[in-house]
């Protein structure tokens, strides 16, 4: 099968719309789920009311730090959302619809996670501020601890597909979704998703315990840009999770992109629910558990998947 691609101009429009729309949907879901968890009598309208907080954040000025690296400070959120766009590009959005469903899909996705680490590190480093720098260092330690999980989980998904392209990974789930066939995959990939977007329990670089870390010194539009970039990345991870574990665009009656959107909204709701319901994991405990429990589990997952494919 030749990889499906959209026309470059159409790809820019589709990619931009999915990223922007995804960021808005994740923001609204986060507010709605948060309101429901908090027992708000009108949780459905919380998504709309959240706009007030966006306006407030837009008007709040940032801090002037001593000799910051202004170029890298501006580049960091742009790079983060740029690599989110790169990840989106290799994901199939429907049957035969993808920006670039390349043969090396999962390798590109791995590269995105690593480049996201660089972007977050630079965001904290460029501020020239102690707690922002602590956040930057934390994210490198956190990322290095979960990056291998992502690789093993994605390689396991590629084994039955006999291809590293996400389109083939979806096609291989025609009979049975990977969430059933590879039960350890989804929980492990959730750790990676929450880690890369530093969301909820894994918000260690921007955690409240270090006064919001890498985003401590940014305010106004720069702060909004950083938060939008995170939400766009979480939306991309929701789509990737649907593609890898929930059969992507596969489904009866409705068109493929609609199925993918529905599954992604469910996954994103799960992510933001975890963000509200699970407390922040202490840094050293996360690193220890990632290396001593999750990494061996992911290797077991890969070995079992490989054995099942061979049998």
């Amino acid at each position: 099968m030749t990889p499906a691609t959209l026309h470059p101009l159409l790809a820019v429009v589709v990619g931009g719309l999915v990223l922007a729309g995804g960021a808005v949907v994740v923001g609204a879901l986060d507010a709605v789920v948060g309101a429901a968890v908090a027992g708000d009598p009108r949780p459905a309208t919380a998504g709309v009311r959240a706009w007030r907080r966006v306006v407030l954040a837009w008007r709040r000025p940032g801090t002037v730090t001593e000799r910051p690296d202004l170029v890298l400070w501006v580049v960091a959120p742009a790079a983060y959302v740029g690599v989110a766009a790169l990840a989106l590009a290799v994901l199939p959005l429907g049957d035969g619809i993808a920006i670039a469903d390349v043969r090396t899909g999962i390798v590109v996705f791995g590269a995105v996670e690593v480049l996201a680490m660089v972007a977050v590190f630079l965001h904290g480093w460029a501020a020239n501020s102690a707690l922002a720098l602590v956040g930057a260092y934390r994210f490198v330690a956190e990322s290095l601890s979960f990056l291998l999980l992502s690789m093993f989980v994605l390689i396991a998904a590629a084994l039955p597909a006999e291809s590293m392209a996400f389109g083939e990974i979806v096609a291989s789930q025609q009979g049975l979704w990977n969430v059933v066939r590879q039960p350890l995959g989804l929980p492990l990939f959730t750790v990676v998703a929450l880690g890369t977007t530093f969301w909820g329990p894994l918000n260690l670089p921007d955690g409240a315990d270090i006064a919001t870390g890498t985003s401590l010194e940014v305010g106004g539009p720069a702060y909004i840009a950083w938060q939008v970039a995170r939400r766009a990345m979480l939306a991309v991870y929701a789509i990737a999770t649907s593609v890898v574990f929930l059969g992507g665009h596969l489904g009866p009656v409705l068109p493929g992109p609609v199925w993918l959107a529905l599954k992604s909204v469910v996954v994103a709701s799960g992510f933001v629910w975890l963000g509200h319901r699970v407390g922040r994991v202490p840094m050293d405990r996360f690193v220890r558990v990632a290396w001593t429990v999750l990494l061996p589990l992911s290797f077991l997952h890969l070995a079992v998947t490989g054995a099942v494919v061979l049998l």
Partner: protein
Amino acid sequence: MTGWPVDVAFWVLAVGAVWFGWRVFRTDSMVRATFALLVSFLDVGAIMVLLLAEYLGVALFFMMAVEMTVMAIFMVAYMMNPAGLNPMQMVHQPRVAVVAGVLAAAGLAAVAWFADLPSVALVAPQDTIRELGLEVMGESMILMQTAGITLLATMIGAVALTAAHGRFGEATSGSRPPRLDPDAEPVEQEMARPDPHAHHGGHG
């Protein structure tokens, strides 16, 4: 891949790779130098994708991104330059470096100029990734395994050197904190470190 967009992309990436490679030596911070080198590598990786070595190109992206980040952190750890924000000289042994650089560039240029390289445009070869896999896990396996073990040993050594606590005790054992006056003798007392195993004071 062929066509004018590919040619434009090649030249933009090639100039970018050289420019950022040059910036490595013009900046005054270890972190900026490291990430300038990363951008240079990313340009090279993108050129490899243009040449249809897409697996190697994309693998270069993530390998170099991890490597450069870890390198930045270890550089800062060893360079006694907190966070790499203090100005510092980025060049050492400049004469040797210039000679080595000119010789290497001349050698590569000679290869490009005189070698009989194929000039047939490849159009979407299907089996390159499979062939690469068979090469790495077949003919070149000993080479790859040797390189892998060497890198692993280096990583373990680097971690052991930076660890605050090892099998021979505390890394700061015997070191004494300096005084504010640079000419004065260091403090008599050894540097105090919190002992996680002792819940009471006593030694010092």
